[in-house]
């Protein structure tokens, strides 16, 4: 039987990286995710030979990821909001050059230096393409320490399936809190060489080039069309969403990551009061589960969107519902975490209680 362990989210994620057969991690300390670098520095190399390197900056980290990912190995980095901002140029290059890799953002409150407390204010940056140019990452949003571990393995599978950078977007609370986790078995570190990698040119093939530069606009448009077709395939095949008690629901509370758990508790409190409330939890933020919202909107009276930001995912919820029913918002910002009671109150006053206007 598998063993349950009690682990911090950041440590479970780092342990999962080792077990997923990750070949190299490049990173830079930043609260609240430094445990990832610390754990890997302690554990990784001696167990699997994995390379772990503390870079001089997040900019250097992501460019080391770019170089290393070009060899076809399993490469990752992690950081928190300000550090992820510094990486955006590199992420854009990686997306255009179509290199598989994993980027973890343990989101903290912003803007600016902000706070080290948890937040979800990097939703737009993660989901809409935080760097320059038209590109997308598959964005996975864990809501438990278990998923902090499981999604690392999933992320590498998706990264190689689509030759695309994958982001795990989590937050400072999930990174820091301890919870039980069942770890998956150690996977071998193995090279999956399919022909595009820059690993040294054998005599029988032309030299490989990894670049995001295509100076002729017709060629650059071709690249863009190819990328958009790939993103469309992701939208068709990779949407992941959890619905809880939505079948008989009159109202929906929706949120991702940590907030989804608080929403679930709020929905239970509502049911205790006789209100039929369900929860929609997007697991992939890109691709977003538009259809789930669109379909459920036919059967419910309204949706309360809850986020630890000023309202970012709500734009996708509104797009999904397309005006069929009212969408209201409740959010806390700057590192504050909403309570189930606050959410229930917002549900009752903003959505159910009948608004004045």
């Amino acid at each position, binding site marked *: 039987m598998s063993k349950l362990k009690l682990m911090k989210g950041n440590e479970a994620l780092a342990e999962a990286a080792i077990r997923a057969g990750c070949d190299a991690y490049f990173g830079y300390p930043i609260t609240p995710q430094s445990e990832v670098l610390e754990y890997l520095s302690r554990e990784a190399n001696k167990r699997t030979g994995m390379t772990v*390197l503390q870079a001089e900056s997040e900019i250097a980290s992501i*460019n080391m*990821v770019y*170089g290393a990912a070009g060899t076809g190995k399993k490469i990752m980095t992690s950081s928190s909001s300000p550090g992820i901002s510094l990486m955006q140029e590199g992420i854009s290059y990686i997306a255009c050059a179509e290199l598989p890799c994993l980027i973890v953002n343990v989101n903290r409150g912003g803007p600016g230096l902000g706070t080290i407390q948890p937040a979800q204010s990097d939703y737009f940056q993660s989901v809409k393409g935080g760097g320059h140019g038209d590109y997308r990452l598959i964005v996975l949003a864990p809501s438990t320490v278990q998923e902090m571990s499981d999604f690392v393995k999933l992320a590498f599978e998706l990264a190689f399936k689509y030759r695309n950078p994958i982001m795990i977007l989590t937050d400072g609370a999930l990174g820091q809190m301890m919870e039980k986790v069942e770890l998956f078995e150690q996977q071998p570190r193995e090279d999956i060489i399919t022909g595009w990698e*820059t690993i040294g040119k054998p005599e029988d093939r032309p030299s490989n*080039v990894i670049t995001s530069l295509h100076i002729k606009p017709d060629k650059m448009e071709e690249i863009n069309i190819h990328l958009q077709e790939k993103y469309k395939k992701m939208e068709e095949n990779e949407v992941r969403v959890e619905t809880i008690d939505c079948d008989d629901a009159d109202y929906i509370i929706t949120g991702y990551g940590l907030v989804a758990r608080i929403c679930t508790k709020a929905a239970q409190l509502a049911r205790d009061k006789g209100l039929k409330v369900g929860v929609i939890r997007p697991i992939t933020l890109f691709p977003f589960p538009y259809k789930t919202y669109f379909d459920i909107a036919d059967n419910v009276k309204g949706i309360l969107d809850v986020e630890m930001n000023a309202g970012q995912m709500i734009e996708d919820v509104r797009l999904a519902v397309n005006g069929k029913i009212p969408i209201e918002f409740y959010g806390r910002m700057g590192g504050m975490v909403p309570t189930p009671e606050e959410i229930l109150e917002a549900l009752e006053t903003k959505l159910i209680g009948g608004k004045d206007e």
Partner: protein
Amino acid sequence: MSEQTIIDEIKTEENLVYKKPEALKDTPFHYCPGCAHGVVHRLIAEVIDEMGIQSETIGVAPVGCSVFAYNYIDVDMTEAAHGRASAVATGIKRVLPDRLVFSYQGDGDLAAIGTGETIHTCNRGENVLIIFINNGIYGMTGGQMAPTTLENMKSTTTPFGRDVSVMGYPLKITELVAALPGTQYVTRQAVYKPGLVRKTKKAIRKSFELQKENKNGTCFIEVVANCPSNWKMTPVESNKWLEENMLPFYQLGDIKTPNGRK
């Protein structure tokens, strides 16, 4: 006897004195007449041929005039973001330590926007070769001031000459990295005369040999170069200007050799 027959008689294996290296692609160079990039690209390719290391060499191209280095040098290559080539090279070398990895960078790339990556790559002693082309100007963007632009030297952003009281001083980054314990071989060369071309080739070969033989740290070759187009000179004038103005400040020769180490 027709002209073609004469040519064919001359074009025999035993008469061959000069040919395109195997490790250069067929793409004609896009560089301006008199530019040093083509010469240095060729030297890298010659060394790769002579050492038989094409299959184990991975290059990193910069942003700048030599952004298309991968269109000429026939090895696997990655094109880095501006300034980040040495970080990219670090990433490659760390996961493929038995490969020979080099970055090829200009002065703006390596010594302005990429200063942090340059210093820290050298300070970690990454076992890579950094080739640094210093022509004292931003070539591709059209002749703006570089970190290595000489005092009083004109550029489009120092139209009255570089005033060091406003713009700061030309940066001798090569001396700077030589002071770091992570570098094992640091040298400054030039390619505007045949003798110097041969010396630069020797430096490139020595660097690849050191990378192959040991793990004692970074090799760093600066090539002091001209930029006839942006210096607004003919190739010949620019070579003369280089000799008279660049070389007194950027003096040629080895700055640090493996033998100089303890």
